[in-house]
């Protein structure tokens, strides 16, 4: 009996080994077909290894098998190049659970670089998404783009040149974005319509806006909440906005460090935020009209604490430039002051808690604050009645740490 069990165990072990296969793909003629075939015929647990070199691709790639790892030799060594892409709305599309993407780059996709949708468990690690010509409105919208996913881990990755957001997490839940570099995008990192995100130890620089936390109406998942943005370096985000009009990020003023729009429970702490020409932190309601009765356009329960602010307000841009011309001095933290909104003609009032405490500014003291005093969400800024007094020091419970086991 013992022998039988031992034999059985050995067999299972071998079967287990036989099941997890490694597909090795080298650049060159036939690589595209070989790579897409591997991504179709892989079994759960398999690894697709990309050799060193440049893979020229004419069509978007796609993966729909759970628990597959795609791994290259490094973001600067294994490059999926879509410069000559003729088909497919993204470079790589992933629609399965538990996928790991590691150590390769996606360059010059015609649309989004890497889109991952409707998944549970996705890891980006050491991945680079880039449009190599730099900021250009003809670049694709998103670099690293998980949407409607649970358990999203993006770390040690790089995003450059996206005409919307370099790292964009949309309509997702349980998210960690850490140790990444986002530069030369319109938005460096954007968390949109999402629940429970930790965004930390990232560098967001030379974007139009550094780190954005948005909530938009009319989407299947909304009511974004519980977002922690901490220990990031968010500096010199002064690239002129190059987003195509019509997109929400096209309204982001160049020179914005952190932008919080709508959402509940956003905590911004222990970041280095400076040299952003318009404002270091902008807190605003969603300012367009909307018909969605379930949507709340106001940012609520916002904590800005223990940050180090550098220079700001030296080159106000976008809609806010007009305020500067009216003689408004730009602060570290600017809030539109909205506490009221109306949906389908019905006015609603909110107790909006915005708290700023224990920050330090290179310009002296705790940093400056300004409410524009525009009480109704979306009302014209010409109605502003600026008020520099700090909001009351209320306690706002911090969201719990996000944990992911991918």
């Amino acid at each position, binding site marked *: 009996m013992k022998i039988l069990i031992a034999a059985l165990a050995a067999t299972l072990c071998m079967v287990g080994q036989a099941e997890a296969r490694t597909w090795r793909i080298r650049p060159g003629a036939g690589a595209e077909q070989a790579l897409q075939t591997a991504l179709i015929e892989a079994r759960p647990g398999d690894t697709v290894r990309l050799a060193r070199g440049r893979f020229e691709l004419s069509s*978007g790639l796609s993966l729909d098998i759970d628990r597959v790892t795609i791994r290259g030799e490094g973001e600067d060594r294994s490059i999926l190049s879509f410069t000559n892409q003729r088909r497919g709305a993204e470079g790589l599309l992933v629609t399965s659970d538990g996928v790991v993407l590691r150590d390769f780059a996606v360059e010059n*996709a015609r649309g989004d670089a890497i889109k991952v949708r409707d998944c549970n468990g996705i890891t980006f690690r050491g991945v680079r998404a880039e449009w190599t010509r730099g900021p250009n409105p003809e670049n694709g919208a998103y670099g690293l783009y998980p949407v409607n996913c649970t358990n999203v881990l993006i770390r040690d990755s790089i995003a450059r040149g996206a005409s919307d957001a370099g790292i964009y997490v949309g309509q997702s839940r349980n998210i960690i974005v850490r140790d990444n570099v986002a530069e030369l995008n319109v938005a460096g990192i954007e968390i949109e319509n999402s629940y429970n995100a930790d965004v930390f130890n990232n560098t967001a620089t030379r974007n139009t806006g550094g780190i954005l936390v948005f909530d938009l109406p009319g989407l299947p998942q909304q009511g974004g909440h519980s977002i922690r943005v901490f220990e990031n370096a968010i500096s010199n985000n002064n690239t002129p906005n190059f987003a195509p009009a019509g997109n929400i990020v096209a309204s982001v003023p160049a020179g914005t460090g952190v932008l919080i729009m709508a959402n509940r429970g956003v905590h911004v702490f222990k970041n280095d935020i400076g040299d952003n020409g318009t404002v270091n932190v902008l807190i605003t309601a969603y300012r367009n009209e909307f018909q969605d009765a379930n949507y709340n356009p106001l940012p609520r329960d916002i904590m800005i604490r223990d940050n180090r602010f550098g220079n700001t307000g030296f080159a106000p841009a976008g809609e806010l430039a007009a305020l500067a011309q009216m003689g408004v001095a730009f602060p570290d933290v600017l809030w539109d002051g909205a506490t009221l909104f109306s949906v389908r003609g019905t006015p609603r009032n909110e107790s909006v808690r915005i708290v700023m405490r224990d920050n330090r500014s290179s310009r002296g003291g705790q940093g400056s604050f300004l409410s524009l005093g525009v009480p109704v969400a979306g009302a014209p800024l010409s109605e502003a009645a600026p008020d520099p007094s700090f909001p009351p020091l209320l306690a706002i419970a911090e969201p719990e740490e996000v944990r992911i086991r991918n």
Partner: protein
Amino acid sequence: MNIWRVLLCLVAFVALVASAAALGPAPVNQAAIASERPPELLSAYRFFSDVGAREPNTGVTPYDLNTPLWSDGALKFRYVFMPPGAQARYNSETVFEFPVGTVLIKTFAFAADMRQPTENARFLETRLLIRRADGWIALPYVWNEAQTEARLSPAGAGIPVSFTDNEGQNIALDWAVPNRNQCKGCHDRAGEITPIGPSARNLNRQYDYGRFITYEDGHEVVTHGEQDQLAAWAEFGILDNAPQFSPFVPSAYDAHSGSLATRARAYLDVNCAHCHNPDGPAHTSGLDLRWSQSDPALWGVMKRPVAAGRASGGYDFSIEPGHPERSIVLHRMSSDDPGVMMPELGRQLVDQRAIALIRDWIAGMDANGRVRE
């Protein structure tokens, strides 16, 4: 083994072959349909009684749709096979529920001159959707140059095609046979592969059966000429129920078949709603282009883009009533740039008739998304 036994075997074999010939072609190969490893060659299924796959075998029913998905204007020949005795279940809203063992067969072809579609049609590929016990699978078979056989091509393929289009223009394109994932890119409902076309509203039309033979209890039953397609399916025993009044969608390009608004909605339903529905791949966009969706805001009326990027074309709304020239829906339908165009897959050309249809619809639309006709 002595010589007599060999001879006997030979005689028996010849007799068997002769008797098989007398009974007509061998029936559809259901073992091939059920097989875990799909056959390499389309002919192995015996869906057709001729080499060129023009003549459906017994039990293989041709059908047509009111408004089909547009695929660069390709001709499409559609058939359905169900195991003998099995039936699809009627549903007034969604695609019918088909029994295990069903195969939806669709051949894509271009005629040398599309103004004479019945002459010199070259088959490119035949796609099968097979209903297994655990769901549908999609299998593309690519036709050879000689048009004598089609071979399974799960990783996709490119086929150079040239033809003269309906306007007399010479067109050359690299036809893209979808790989397995791309099949699912359209045929996806909540992560499962699913058919798009055969719903009651889209099948509810006349079909010219010519002289079409089915078998009932071993007897030949001949169906002649034009028949109501749903009633015919019920007659053939492949549909459990065909109500006297079923919903229908008009034929999008035929101005006589319905109002501008219904034709536009029918087009968007078949060409867009397979992704743009609450369970489809594009649900995160918030657009719902299903025929059943009555809220114009969800069709895109005054809806701002979410993740369109440069595909917005600089415009603010998916549909801006009265302004087709500023509506993102039309902008993306008019593009052939892979990063902009909609649908994302399945076309390289622009459907000019659809552009005219959607342009007229948006131009005539009031602020509430309605068209007075």
